[in-house]
């Protein structure tokens, strides 16, 4: 067990391990998030490498608590570990204060764990960028958390393979007066733009939270309806 950090500075002042982690993210399946006036939507590609894989067993949007969920681009197992850590953070907060956690608070505390992996002995940075979507007392939130531990609040964003193109598309389509239904359509359109092959209700995952503070992952039947509307 090494007790020195594996992530060290290059002479140019960069942390190459973090850059490489971001490369891993850039290779991952695209995920898009849009924050509307009255809700937040997450959509993510769920391309399977083989038709033999049981599609329903793969869940790319993880519920962190009733009013917050997250998805990712990058290494699936790293996301699994981080989302479990996030759930524990939520419960720790709940035990102490007995109130619904604020998205900013959760993001900040999770970011702490992500940053530690860039400065602790013997471990590597996490190979995922995470999109956290939630609705708390302060309103709807969309936060992106990077392997460096940096986190940013977004109105709309994309991560993964199609991030650049998707964000360009979103810049044109986004407006601050969007309602959640518009946001869902826009998110699906954006994902469809860069999608390789045919988009179906089972090769994507859609999650929505509205002002009732309850995050719901849409069943394929509902996703089918939204996709048909796009036509």
């Amino acid at each position, binding site marked *: 067990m090494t007790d020195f950090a594996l992530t060290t500075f290059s002479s140019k002042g960069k942390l190459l391990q973090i850059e490489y982690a971001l490369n891993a993210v850039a290779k991952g399946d695209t995920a898009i998030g849009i924050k509307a006036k009255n809700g937040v939507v997450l959509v993510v590609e769920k391309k399977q490498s083989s038709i033999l894989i049981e599609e329903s067993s793969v869940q790319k949007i993880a519920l962190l608590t009733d009013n917050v969920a997250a998805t990712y681009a990058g290494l699936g197992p790293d996301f699994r570990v981080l989302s479990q850590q996030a759930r524990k953070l939520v419960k720790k907060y709940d*035990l*102490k*204060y*007995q*109130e619904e956690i*604020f998205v*900013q*608070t959760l993001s*900040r505390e999770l970011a702490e764990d992500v940053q530690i992996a860039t400065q602790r002995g013997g471990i590597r940075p996490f190979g995922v960028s995470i999109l956290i979507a939630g609705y708390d007392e302060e309103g709807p939130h969309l936060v992106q958390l990077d392997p460096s531990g940096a986190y940013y609040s977004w109105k709309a964003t994309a991560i993964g393979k199609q991030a650049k193109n998707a964000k360009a598309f979103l810049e044109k389509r986004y407006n601050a007066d969007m309602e959640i239904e518009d946001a869902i359509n826009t998110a699906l359109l954006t994902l469809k733009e860069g999608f390789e092959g045919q988009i179906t209700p089972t090769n994507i995952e859609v999650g929505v939270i509205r002002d009732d503070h309850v995050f719901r992952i849409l069943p394929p039947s509902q996703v089918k309806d939204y996709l048909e509307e796009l036509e």
Partner: protein
Amino acid sequence: MSGIFEYNGGSIVGMKGKNCIAMACDRRFGQQMSTITTNYQKVFKIQDNILLALSGLNSDIHTFYALMEKEINLYNLKENRKMKPTTFANLVASSLYERRFGPFFVTPIVAGLENGKPILATYDSIGCKSDLDDFQVGGTGGNYIYGACEAFFKPDMSPEELEEVIGQSLVSGCDRDSLSGWGGVVYVLTEQKLTVKILKTKQT
């Protein structure tokens, strides 16, 4: 030490009114039969809209108050916002339970105004929270104050009425308790202001 909760003596009481809350405490700091000082503070302003009253072992009153101050200051800095009274009430409960097997010998009362609505919570020394009542008492004179409260209290009192009622209940109660008294302090909190009044009790 028999009666560690009785060693220093002291009484506190909290009451809900119409869009206001009141807290009152005595001023005695004693060591069993001796009175050391008659100006000991037992009610603390945690935030503009939250008051914390503590009775029990004075050393723990001070320590627990300092701990709560620290928590709320860190919270304000980290979260960049004020703490809600109901959140603080829960924080007190979990902080007390954290010391389940080496507890703080205090019985706190938390009172506050959340969006104008009065909040009142009381606890045992290991954090069992009770927030269902309109008035609560604590300390060695608690039971005597209960009697006066039951007689004088009515729901939805104005700040002025509340100040009078809580003051009278405290004074009557402390007059009966040898370990409480030597003056009283009444705090009345409304959306606009916090008033503090010092009362005279029987000087014994």
